[in-house]
């Protein structure tokens, strides 16, 4: 198998070029199929304003012609392909990594382990995530070693030849269990509760005491993947001045560059990051993943190195949406006004912090809902577990808490015999309302949105 592949690589590159008939049949770069370039010159509208127009996207035509170049569509001469070996075990000490057999494989150009990474930690708020694990594995999707080879297939086969010896450790998978004092620590000696937020406004006890009814409910949500259609992809290459260029599917290149420079211990001006057009982000491409790996493999081999996540890695080794357990207690008057609300949120933080602090903050601030409530207490905890990393995803905890506060609202409405639209209008923010953090709100149109949606839907007409 390996021999066959080796021949393949050779034939496709060197030999193919030497054989004149082959070179004719398989041009190194096929001329692109012609397309109507004239019409690419935009038809210019003479009028302003520009704002408010349904202007066409400048990238729209390229997308439709298949001409947008995403990272995986780029190739460079001599480029190698990298793959990362995943732990497959949720919590363990790494006793030994033997890469010798993989390194001896024909077609393998370099192998990288965590110990070779100059600063083996990163993260947007806490730097608790290793690029490749060196001493300990924190979740099953962790990388433990990487290979650069002449083809992706050889790289994948080489991963099988890397032997990692683990000493399994007890894994903690449930956030409520992980909060207990005697739970195994994910990042010992640190507590599993790695961030906490509290918001207090008014007098909660007084609010509950004045309420005619008190409702309590627990809601929970699941772990969700971003599923960008384009898997994470990165290419690293160096010039002879020791300057690194990284092409990568990153939504935030400025801070990506900071993280790459930090992990590689390089001055920032030695790092050049290009993101081209990213094939879907939704929060999942807001931090570095394999960029330092391709950079170091490129340095070791002196050749450009590309790595693309498989769809499986996209699930196991990129970030996901936080599952949240949400406890709501709400006191209301007979006519459906919310007088007091207490919220407790428990976020499953996964193995690393990632964007959890931001998610914790937004979920906590937004959890009382867009309602005028005099007496509020919202408290949120984010807890390490030996599971897939949870991080930024479209809404930073807001879809989860909205599910809870709006389900709760309907249950209250039904119990009081008030129409769900009406109970919301009775409580909704208006211009100048004060948020649970004491902020005076401006350009508030939640009532307008309720009324317009109800009218458009025909809410009154569809009433039974």
């Amino acid at each position, binding site marked *: 198998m390996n021999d066959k592949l080796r021949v393949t690589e050779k034939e496709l590159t060197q030999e193919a070029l030497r054989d004149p008939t082959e070179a004719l049949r398989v041009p190194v770069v096929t001329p692109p199929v012609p397309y109507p370039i004239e019409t690419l010159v935009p038809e210019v*509208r*003479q*009028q*302003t304003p*520009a*704002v*408010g127009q349904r*202007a066409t*996207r*400048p990238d729209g035509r390229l997308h439709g012609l298949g001409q947008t170049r995403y990272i995986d569509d780029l190739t460079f001469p001599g480029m190698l392909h990298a793959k990362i070996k995943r732990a497959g075990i*949720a919590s363990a000490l790494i006793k030994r990594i033997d890469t010798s057999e993989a390194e001896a494989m024909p077609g393998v150009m370099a192998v990288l382990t965590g110990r070779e990474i100059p600063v083996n930690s990163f993260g947007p708020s806490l730097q608790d995530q290793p690029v490749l694990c060196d001493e300990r594995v924190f*979740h099953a*999707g962790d990388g433990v070693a990487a290979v650069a080879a002449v083809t992706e297939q050889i790289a994948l086969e080489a991963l099988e030849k890397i032997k990692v010896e683990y000493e399994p450790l007890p*894994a903690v998978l449930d956030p409520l269990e992980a909060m207990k004092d005697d739970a195994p620590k994910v990042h010992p000696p640190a507590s599993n509760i790695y961030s906490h937020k509290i*918001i*207090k*406004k008014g007098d909660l006890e007084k609010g509950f005491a004045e309420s005619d009814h008190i409702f309590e*409910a627990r809601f929970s*949500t*699941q*772990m969700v993947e971003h599923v960008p259609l384009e898997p994470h992809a990165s290419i690293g290459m160096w010039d002879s001045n020791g300057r690194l260029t990284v092409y990568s599917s990153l*939504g935030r290149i400025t801070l990506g560059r900071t993280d790459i420079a930090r992990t590689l211990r390089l001055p920032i001006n030695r790092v050049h*990051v*290009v993101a*081209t057009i*990213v094939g879907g982000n*939704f*929060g999942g491409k*807001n931090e570095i993943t394999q960029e330092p790996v391709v950079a170091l493999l490129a340095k070791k081999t002196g050749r450009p190195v590309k790595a693309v996540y498989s*769809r499986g890695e996209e*699930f196991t080794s990129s970030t996901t949406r936080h599952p949240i357990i949400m406890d709501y207690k709400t006191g209301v008057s007979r006519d459906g006004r919310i007088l007091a609300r207490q919220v407790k949120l428990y976020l499953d933080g996964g193995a690393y912090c990632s964007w959890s602090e931001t998610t914790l*903050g*937004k979920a906590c*601030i937004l959890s009382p*809902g*867009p309602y005028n409530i005099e007496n509020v207490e919202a408290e949120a905890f984010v807890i390490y577990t030996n599971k897939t990393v949870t991080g930024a995803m*479209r*809404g930073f905890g807001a*879809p989860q808490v*909205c599910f809870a506060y709006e*389900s709760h609202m309907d249950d209250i409405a*039904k119990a009081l015999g008030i129409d*769900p639209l009406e109970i*919301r209008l009775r409580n909704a923010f208006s211009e100048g309302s004060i948020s649970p*953090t*004491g*902020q005076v*709100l*401006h*350009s*508030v*149109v*939640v009532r307008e*949105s*309720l009324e*317009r*949606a*109800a009218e*458009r*839907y025909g809410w009154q007409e569809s009433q039974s």
Partner: protein
Amino acid sequence: MKRRGRGIACMWYPIGFTVAANPSAATVKVNEDGTATLLTGTVETGQGSLTVLAQIAAEELGVATEDVHVVSADTDVTPMDTGAIASRTTYVTGNATRLAAEKAKAILFNVAAPMLGVRPDQLEARDRKIQVKRFPQRQLPISQVAHHALFVKGDPPIGSASFNPPTVAMDPETGQGLPFATYVYATQIAEVDVDDETGEVEVLRIVASHDCGTAINPMLVEGQIEGGISMGIGLALQEEILFDDKGRQINPNLTNYIMPTSLDMPEIEVDIVPSYDPTGPFGAKGVGEPTSVPTAAAILNAIHDAVGARVHSLPATAEKVLAAIKESRVQGTKQLPGTRRAIAGPAA
């Protein structure tokens, strides 16, 4: 039997980071023919930032959207930007872009003022012209002014600016503070059919009324809302990463992790709520993330309305819905009060 229900959910959502600085910088260069180039460090990830930022720069310069070419996503070329995150591009990078364009425009006005015999503050830029306010017949093409600025005055019309949303840190004990510069609001109403024998849910229709401040490009706002709803449907009914008892994922593939396809999408009616935020570029706020915030809540309320059963944990799979229906029947304390009408056979 299929039972129909409707559910409503509203939400609020902030623009930008929680307290933390999240600045954007931008550079606008007006070329000698009156076209312009915008440099931004944000990244086009599908949301349409290249288009929206071009429209903002064009509006400020009084040129057409197509006159502005946007260069993005290259750390060697483009100024720093916190990136495509937290629904912040239109508001934060948009403000930086407008300010940068304003500075370039100021250079053009300084050059044009003596050419038109007025003060710079008496000028405005519209329809690719620099003209005297209230006397639009006294005008010069922007191309002529830009050419003059560069080749005669030696003052190339370039502007750079940055913007960081103002916030006040939250008190660690009480959480009191101003964590965000602005918020958007929205309501979605879902209509569903629930099969009370299988627990299967079909989302038929979603009405979405969203506030984004000024809609810089209504077509792209609609696209964001439609896409956000599809993600919300996945969260509500289908998607879940499952683990075995050892902490390994069971379904890390698109065969067993079910996300919405074209067959799962309901009829969507988008409504953009008129709104203007004086702190945003031309009144704009943002729209990316909030579009998927109220969808799951609206669908779950519609399920409750249809069959009187409350599902407390997402996703509301057929098994969970059926279990909730059975539980609500066993409790027997209530009939199915939310059920308005049963539909015989397939929905008409």
